[in-house]
């Protein structure tokens, strides 16, 4: 069977997220336990997490999480990294052997600082430099796959059910202010570790439940701007789109949301003049970034997250609150596990972004 990247793989899924607006630490077991009641939304072919604020001691360094098929690949890759970065620290990511998770690749993490001379010679900023590096490794270096590349954050993913993946990565030992989780139900993959979600680039990561119908329109457009959709998954393309719109075009999250889950023309027509003009403009200039078909996503970055449904709300997604915490999940049950006392349950409308930001200075 072809694996992610060789063929487009649609999948159904479960997602969950929790974030503390105060930047308070939350241990990983909270989120992986939340995935248990949604067990049936996954099929054991992929689970994963993104955690923010987990590497405070290396907060200024890019943390690369990389899968290697072989020791030799790691050598080559490390050599490549060293040409471009100062590697402050490189280590195996601690895991625990459990029967549910098998066939794991070699999983390393590197805390790196870009070599300023290299950055300067490519005439890009640090982020762009890192993004290029990731693209380069993931497209050019067979057997190596960077699955996390942001600062003070990390993705953890594997083939297996999400709750098992959490145990495997010993996530209860990490403390972060924001977590997202994903359980995967792909329909035609043998299961590949790199193909599990979240998908991330730099510090942004996306968990997604759905199967978008606009995929190839989105992909072929975004690939014009240097992105390479190596996995051919929705999550990957959505991550790139958000990266392009927010980081490269400088749109606000709300603006980005009204590009990818644009209001219908009929809705736009009924809005006040100024807003109408703006929404029309955004649809006019980014038509290829409209995402259609079902999706519910949680897009995270250092300091916040945004939950968003497709404009017809073809996938379930619910939000809730308790004190400083905000919870998001495909199903209410997941929230109840994280916080039995959660309140203000709310099902956001299609295309209505729910944006949560950690207080300035708290992360």
């Amino acid at each position: 069977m072809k694996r992610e990247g060789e063929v487009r793989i649609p999948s159904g899924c479960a997602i969950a997220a929790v974030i503390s607006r105060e930047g308070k630490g939350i241990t990983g077991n909270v989120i992986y336990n939340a995935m248990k009641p949604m067990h049936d939304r996954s099929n054991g072919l992929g689970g994963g997490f993104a955690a923010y604020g987990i590497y405070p001691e290396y907060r200024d360094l890019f943390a690369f999480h990389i899968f290697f098929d072989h020791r030799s690949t790691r050598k080559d890759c490390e050599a490549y990294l060293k040409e471009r970065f100062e590697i402050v620290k490189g280590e195996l990511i601690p895991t625990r052997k459990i029967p549910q998770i098998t066939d794991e690749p070699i999983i390393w993490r590197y805390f790196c600082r870009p070599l300023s001379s290299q950055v300067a010679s490519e005439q890009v900023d640090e982020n762009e430099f890192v993004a290029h590096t990731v693209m380069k490794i993931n497209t050019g270096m067979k057997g190596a796959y960077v699955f996390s590349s942001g600062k003070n954050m990390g993705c953890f993913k594997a083939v297996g059910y999400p709750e098992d993946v959490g145990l495997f990565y010993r996530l209860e030992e990490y403390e972060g202010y924001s977590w997202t989780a994903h359980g995967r139900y792909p329909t035609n993959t043998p299961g590949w570790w790199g193909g599990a979600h979240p998908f991330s680039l730099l510090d942004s990561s996306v968990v997604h439940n759905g199967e978008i119908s606009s995929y190839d329109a989105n992909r072929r457009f975004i690939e014009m701007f240097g992105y390479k959709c190596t996995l051919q998954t929705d999550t990957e393309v959505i991550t790139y789109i958000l990266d392009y719109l927010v980081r490269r075009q400088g749109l606000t999250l709300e603006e980005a949301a009204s590009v990818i889950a644009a209001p219908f023309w009929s809705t736009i027509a009924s809005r006040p003049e100024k807003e109408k003009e703006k929404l029309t403009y955004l649809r006019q200039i980014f038509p290829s970034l409209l995402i259609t078909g079902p999706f519910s996503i949680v897009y995270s970055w250092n300091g916040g997250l945004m939950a968003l449904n497709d404009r017809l709300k073809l996938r379930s997604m619910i939000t809730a609150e308790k004190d400083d915490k905000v919870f998001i999940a495909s199903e209410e049950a997941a929230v109840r596990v994280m916080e039995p006392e959660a309140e203000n349950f709310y099902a956001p409308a299609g295309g209505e972004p729910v944006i949560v930001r950690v207080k300035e200075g708290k992360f």
Partner: protein
Amino acid sequence: MREHFIYPEFEVVRNDNRCIQCRVCERQCANEVHRFDTDLGLMISDETKCVNCQRCISLCPTRALKIVKSDCRLRENANWSDETIKEIYKQANSGGVLLSSMGNPKPLPVYWDKMLINASQVTNPPIDPLREPMETKVFLGKKPDKIRRDENGELITETAPQLELSMPVMFSAMSYGSISYNAHASLARAATELGICYNTGEGGLHEDFYIYGPNTIVQVASGRFGVHKNYLEAAAAVEIKMGQGAKPGIGGHLPGAKIVGDVSRTRMIPEGSDAISPAPHHDIYSIEDLRQLVFSLKEATEYKKPVIVKVAAVHNIAAIASGIARSGADIIAIDGFRGGTGAAPTRIRDNVGIPIELALAAVDQRLRDEGIRNNVSLIVGGSVRSAADVVKAVALGADAVYVATAALLALGCHLCRTCQSGKCNWGIATQNPELVKRLNPDIGSRRLVNLMDAWRHEIKELMGGMGINSIESLRGNRLMLRGVGLTAKELEILGISHAGE
């Protein structure tokens, strides 16, 4: 010397048991095929004149007529077909270039028919267009590379001029002169009602149709007929015609006989003079010349109107399109080798150019590879025959399509392919007032609107099936297509997988 006799292509079969001798056929045939013979008390036919336009058949109230292909054949020969032999006879008779009309009728591959469309099942839901909004609006024109904000951080929403269409289909260029006043009136009125555009072609814009300006694309072709300040100002967009799919590499020739009255006035040439469009624009011998014309037209229209450059699909179309995309043009229109025409040399029509499907796929991919797809919108034409073709074209990467033959069919054309005779019995490709009158624009525009409404419904159904609720998400979405019976090379060019993959 007696010219070589060519047996009539068609037979007029009249069922005398049904014929009530109302003589409608006789009155309606501009070719004078039918005649009532008072001595015999019968309707009789002269088949040598019949072009099989089916006007008589359509109007015969008792269905007493049919026209069939004559089965009088030459001796069978797989190499020398009847048609080939007869063409040789004709040329031996006349010594001239053979002329034909409408699109290439040869059995060359139709790639639309070798691509199949996807639909959603289980993993993602089809969307019911009867329940959910299903959007077909498109904007054609250059998109900015980067958003801009003012000092308050507000988005600056100004864009390069955009052509807004309620659906990604337009009526392509057909000049007043090659088609009739009433045909133009029908197209203009329908385009306005539909919120799309029609195209003047190179014959200028009749003064009566300036009111439809917001839905009019005016053409600037090599003959520059009818081009003046008001003409450019009246339009929604200006199209520079570099070539035409039916006859790439050659110009046009509207005989003086058709340059009468309003046609002459609209073209701004004397009555009775032949309207010759040179093969090249004589001020465009290179891509940089084109750029100059693009900007001349933009200057003339104060940068308020998108400029379209229309080219025929030829072998290196991708490179040509890349050049145009960098010329300042807002939109590229590509016309495939099956595109129609009012008259073209048969050999050119049938042997020059490439299929639009391959041209489109190559151009769209090339522009993306170069990262300049956003510089231009792509319109394709040249035998887009149905809503399915539209959907396939958009999925391959077109922003919109041009239809002409389908529009003419809606107006009554029966594809007899003798436009060049000027005796169109359907009132379309003629300037004879008696014949022009046969096309009532009330009916014509209604039928065009019906056709486009029907296509819009079908496009929505097809989109809904794919789980797509806006045409933007279909554009360039080649995963929605699968090939059948195509070679690996064809699939590669089309950028699609084979069915089953």
